[in-house]
C-alpha cells in the first residue's frame, strides 16, 4: 500500500478525496471543542479557570510530537526508497510541526506564569520541547541550505532521524526527572485520570488539531508537488 501511494498522481487523487473530510472534521470538532472548553467544562478545583488553557496547550504538544514522528518516518522512507511523496510529506510537515511546537511552548508559558509564578523554567519537559522546536527549525534551514535540493533533503532527513531520540525523552521526562510539569494524566497505564467533563473538550480539540494537520498537509503537499513540476519544466526549458 505504501508503494501504491508513493506515486504522486495516486497520492494527489487520494488527497483531493480526503481534504474535504479533513476540513469538515476540523470545523466540527474544533467548534464543538471550543464550546465545551469555554462554556461546558468546569473550573479545576486547584487551578480554577486557568485549566481552560489545557484545551489548546495539550493538543498542541501532542501534535508537536505526532508531526515529528511523521516527519521522521517520512524521512526514513524518502532515504530508503527515495519516494518523492515521502520526501514531500516530510518537507510539508516541518512548518506545521514547528507551529504546533511554538504553540505548545507559548501556551505553556502563559499557563506557567499564573500557576508556577514563572514564564519559563529550565526543567526537563520544557527544555526537551524547546529542543524539538530547534530540531524543526534546523530541518527547514538544512533542507534549503544547498543549491542541490536533493542533498539538502538528504541532510535534513538524517537530522530528523537523529532527532527522533528526543521524542521518548519528551514523553518520559516527567517520570525520569524531578519537574514542575505535571505527569501524564491521559495516555497512561490504567487509563486517563481526567474527569469526562474535561476529557470531552480535550479529545474534541485534539481531534480538531489532528484534522487541521491533515488539511494543511494536503494543501502544502499539493503545492510542493507543483513546485517540483515547475522545477522540472524550468530544467527542460533551459535544456531547449
Amino acid at each position: 500500500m505504501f508503494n501504491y501511494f508513493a506515486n504522486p498522481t495516486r497520492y494527489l487523487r487520494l488527497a483531493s478525496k480526503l481534504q474535504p473530510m479533513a476540513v469538515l472534521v476540523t470545523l466540527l470538532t474544533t467548534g464543538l471543542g471550543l464550546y465545551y472548553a469555554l462554556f461546558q467544562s468546569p473550573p479545576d478545583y486547584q487551578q480554577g479557570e486557568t485549566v481552560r488553557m489545557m484545551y489548546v496547550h495539550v493538543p498542541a504538544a501532542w501534535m508537536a510530537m505526532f508531526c515529528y514522528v511523521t516527519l521522521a518516518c517520512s524521512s526514513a522512507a524518502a532515504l530508503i526508497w527515495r519516494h518523492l511523496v515521502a520526501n514531500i510529506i516530510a518537507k510539508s510537515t516541518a512548518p506545521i510541526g514547528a507551529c504546533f511546537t511554538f504553540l505548545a511552548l507559548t501556551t505553556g508559558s502563559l499557563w506557567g506564569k499564573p500557576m508556577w509564578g514563572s514564564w519559563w523554567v529550565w526543567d526537563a519537559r520544557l527544555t526537551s520541547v524547546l529542543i524539538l522546536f530547534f530540531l524543526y527549525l534546523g530541518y527547514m534551514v538544512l533542507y534549503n541550505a544547498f543549491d542541490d535540493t536533493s542533498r539538502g533533503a538528504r541532510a535534513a532527513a538524517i537530522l530528523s532521524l537523529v532527532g527522533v531520540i528526543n521524542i521518548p525523552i519528551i514523553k518520559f521526562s516527567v517520570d525520569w526527572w524531578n519537574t514542575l510539569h505535571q505527569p501524564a494524566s491521559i495516555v497512561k497505564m490504567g487509563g486517563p485520570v481526567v474527569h469526562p467533563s474535561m476529557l470531552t473538550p480535550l479529545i474534541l480539540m485534539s481531534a480538531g488539531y489532528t484534522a487541521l494537520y491533515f488539511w494543511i498537509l494536503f494543501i502544502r503537499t499539493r503545492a510542493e508537488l507543483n513546485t517540483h513540476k515547475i522545477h522540472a519544466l524550468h530544467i527542460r526549458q533551459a535544456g531547449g
Partner: protein
Amino acid sequence: MPDLFVNFLSMDGYGSFIWGAFGLSAIVLISLLIQSQRFLKFSEAELRSLQETEAFDDET
C-alpha cells in the same frame, strides 16, 4: 447580562492569560492555513503559466 459577559471575559482574573493562549493559537494556526493556501495558489498559477508557455513554444 453585561455582568455575566464581563465575568466570562475576566475568567476569575486570569482572562489575559486564557484569552492570550486561545487567541495566539487561533492567529498562528489560521495564518499557517492562509499561508499554505497562498503557496498552493501561487504554485498553481506559476505551473499554469509555464505549461502555457511550453505549449506556445511547441506550436511555434
